[in-house]
C-alpha cells in the first residue's frame, strides 16, 4: 500500500489568529504537487503545521499520514514516520556539526525501531554522507561545520536537500526551496529531489511563489492557496497560467466569495 498524506478541512491558528481555514489536500507517495499562492495565504503555515511546530495550533480538521493521525504525533515521530519539511528558513544550531546532527538523525530512526541498535558505524556514515554530498555538489568540509551557522542562503537550502537525501522520506514538503538559489543551485537541488522521487517513489509538495522551480520539478498537480484555503486545483498548466496572469484573477474570483 502506498503512503499518503491526507489533509481534511484543516484549520490552524497562530497566537489565536486563524490562518488556515479549511484546507483539503491529498498527496500520495510518488506524486508531485505544487502549492502556490500570494504572500500571507498560509502556505508556510501549512508546512509548519504538518512538521509539528508547537506555535501552530490545529483547531479543526484532520491530517492522516500513512494511516495515522499526524496531528497527534510529535515532530520527531512525524519525521521518523517518513515526512520531511525542507525549511524556508533553516535554523542555525551553533556547536552542533552537520555530520553529528545527521548521524544522530539516522540513529534516532534506527533506535526508534530497535532500542538496542548501536547506530550507524562511522565508516558507513562517512560513506553515505560523502555520496550524498557529492550528488548535491556540497563541499565535504561542510560536514564539519556547525549546522546552518554562517551558511549562505543557498548553502542552507542545499543542506536541507542533503538532509532529505540522507533521511529518504516518503513525502517531502519543500517550502520555498527555490528562494535565494541561483539557477545552477536550483538545478542541483531539483535534481536531488527528482532522484529521490524516481528511485524511492517519494511524494513531493513544492511550495513556491514562482513557476521557475516547476520547470525542474514537474508537478502532477498544482494548487492555489488564498486566505487559508486551497481555492483552485489543476494540472501543470495552472502554474503557467499564474505565471502569465499573476494572482489578481484568483483574488477577483475568490476574494469576492470571501466578502459574502
Amino acid at each position, binding site marked *: 500500500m502506498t503512503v499518503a498524506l491526507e489533509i481534511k478541512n484543516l484549520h490552524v491558528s497562530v497566537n489565536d489568529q486563524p490562518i488556515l481555514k479549511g484546507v483539503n489536500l491529498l498527496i500520495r507517495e510518488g506524486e508531485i504537487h505544487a502549492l502556490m499562492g500570494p504572500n500571507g495565504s498560509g502556505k508556510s503555515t501549512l508546512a509548519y503545521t504538518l512538521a509539528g511546530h*508547537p506555535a501552530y495550533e490545529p483547531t479543526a480538521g484532520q491530517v492522516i499520514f500513512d494511516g495515522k493521525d499526524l496531528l497527534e504525533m510529535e515532530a*520527531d515521530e512525524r519525521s521518523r514516520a517518513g515526512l520531511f*519539511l525542507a525549511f524556508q528558513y533553516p*535554523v542555525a*544550531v551553533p*556547536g552542533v556539526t552537520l555530520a553529528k546532527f545527521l548521524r544522530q*538523525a539516522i540513529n*534516532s530512526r534506527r533506535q*526508534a525501531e530497535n532500542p538496542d541498535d548501536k547506530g550507524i558505524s562511522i565508516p558507513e556514515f562517512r560513506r553515505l554522507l560523502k555520496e550524498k554530498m557529492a550528488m548535491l555538489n556540497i563541499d565535504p568540509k561542510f560536514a564539519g561545520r556547525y549546522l546552518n551557522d554562517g551558511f549562505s542562503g543557498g548553502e542552507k537550502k542545499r543542506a536541507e536537500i542533503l538532509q532529505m537525501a540522507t*533521511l529518504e522520506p516518503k513525502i517531502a514538503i519543500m517550502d520555498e526551496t527555490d528562494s535565494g538559489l541561483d539557477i545552477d543551485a536550483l538545478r542541483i537541488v531539483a535534481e536531488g529531489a527528482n532522484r529521490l522521487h524516481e528511485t524511492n517513489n517519494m511524494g513531493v509538495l513544492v511550495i513556491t511563489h514562482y513557476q521557475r522551480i516547476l520547470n525542474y520539478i514537474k508537478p502532477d498537480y498544482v494548487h492555489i492557496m488564498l486566505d487559508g484555503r486551497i481555492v483552485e486545483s489543476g494540472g501543470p498548466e495552472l502554474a503557467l497560467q499564474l505565471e502569465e496572469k499573476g494572482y489578481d484573477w484568483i483574488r477577483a474570483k475568490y476574494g469576492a466569495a470571501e466578502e459574502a
Partner: protein
Amino acid sequence: MTGFSKEAVEKLSAVLNEPAWMREFRLQAWEVYEKTPMPTTKDEAWRRTDIRRLKLDEIGPALNGFDASGVDVPAYLGEQLTADKAGGVLVEVDGVVQHYELSDALKEQGVIFCDMHTAVREHEELVKKHFMTEAVKVTDGKFAALHGAFWRGGVFLYVPKNVKAAAPLHSALWSAHGKTFTHTLVVLEEGAEAIFIDEYASGQGDAPGLHNGVIELLVRDNASLTYAGLQDFGQNVWQFNHERARVGRDARLEWVTSMMGTRLTKAFQTVELDKPGAWARMSGVFFTTDRQHVDLDTQQNHNASDTVSDLLYKGALKGKSRSVWQGMIKVLPGSQRIDGFQANRNLMLDRTSRADSIPGLEIEADDVRCTHASTVGKLDEEEVFYLMSRGIPRHTAVQMVVQGFFDPIMARIPIEGVRERIFSRILEKLG
C-alpha cells in the same frame, strides 16, 4: 562540637604534628581572621551572594585524626583522564591520604608530588618559601585567613628548573565528613612543564558542609602549566575559594575550571601576568541546578607589557539556581601591547533560574586590545524543534543544543578525558 577558635588552631597543629613555623603561620592567620569582618552584601564583591544563613561554627574545623583507608571513594575519582597514564596519583579523604603513587621516572626528575602535610615536613624550605607568600595571602579576605589558620590536606607539586614532567599528575580529594580546607600549591620553576588534574568531590549530605580551599599556581619564566580544577561537591556544601596564579616571562598557563556541585560557591580566581610574554588562558564551565548558587569572581591582571590573557566561562542553569560571574581585566600603567579577552555566556534552561554576568575593564595604558562579552540566553526552542523535525527525540535534541552551547569551551580544554568527564556530568545534570 568545636567551633573555630585559637584553641582549635593549636589543636589542629598538634594533631598534624607540625613544625613550629607552620603553627605560627596558622596563629597569625587566625589573628587576621579575627580582625577581618565577615563579608556582607554591602561589600562590592559579595553584593550578589548572601551568606547570612551560613553557620560557620556549627560546621567547625576538621581537627581529628582518622583512618582514611576504610572510606569508600567513588571509583571515578582519580581514574585516568589523560591520554598518558598519570605518573603521580594522590587520593585523599578529608585531607588524609588514602592512596599515593609516584613513578620512578618522576622521582628521578626531581619532581615532588605529595600531600601538603608531607610537603611541610619533608620539603620545609620550599613550602615555607611559597605557601601563601606570593599568590594567595591570608590578607586576601576573610576566607583566605580562615584557610590559613585551618587548612588541611591538599597537594604540593614542584617541578624543578627545565624539567618537563615525564607524566601527568592527578589528585582527587574526597570529602566524607563534609568539611575540607584543602590547599593546592604548584610551583613550576623556570622552563618546567607539567599537566595536573586536581579533583574535589563529595557525596550528597544533609548537614551543611564546608570547603574552604586555596589554589596557588606559580609558573616561573618559560614554564608551562596545564591545570584542571574539577569541583563536584554535594549540594550541602558551602564553598569559599581563593585561587591565584602568577605567570612569568614567556610562560604559559592553561587553567581549566569546572564547577558542578555545592550549595553555594564564592570563588576568587585571579591570574597575574607578571612579565613580558606571559600567556594565560582560563576556561570555565559551570552547571547549576535546584537551588545552587555559584559566584565566580575572575581577574586578569596584566602587570607587564606584551602579555596575553583569554578567559571564557560558560554556564548552564536549571531550576531555581543562580550564577554570578564578575570579571575584571586590569592593565597597569605603562604596560603596552596587551591582549586581554574575557567572555561569559550563560544558558538558562528554566525561567526560574537567574544569571548575572558583569564584565569589567580597568585599563591604564594606551596600546591595549581588551575586549569583553557577556550573554544570558534561554534555550532556543526553534533549535530544538529543528532537530526534532529530523526525527531526533526532544530529550536528545535538548542535549544536543546544550552540548552545542558548551562546544566552544570544550574545544579549549586540552585533555580529552577532562572534556568527557565534564560533559558526562553536564548530561547527568541536564537529566
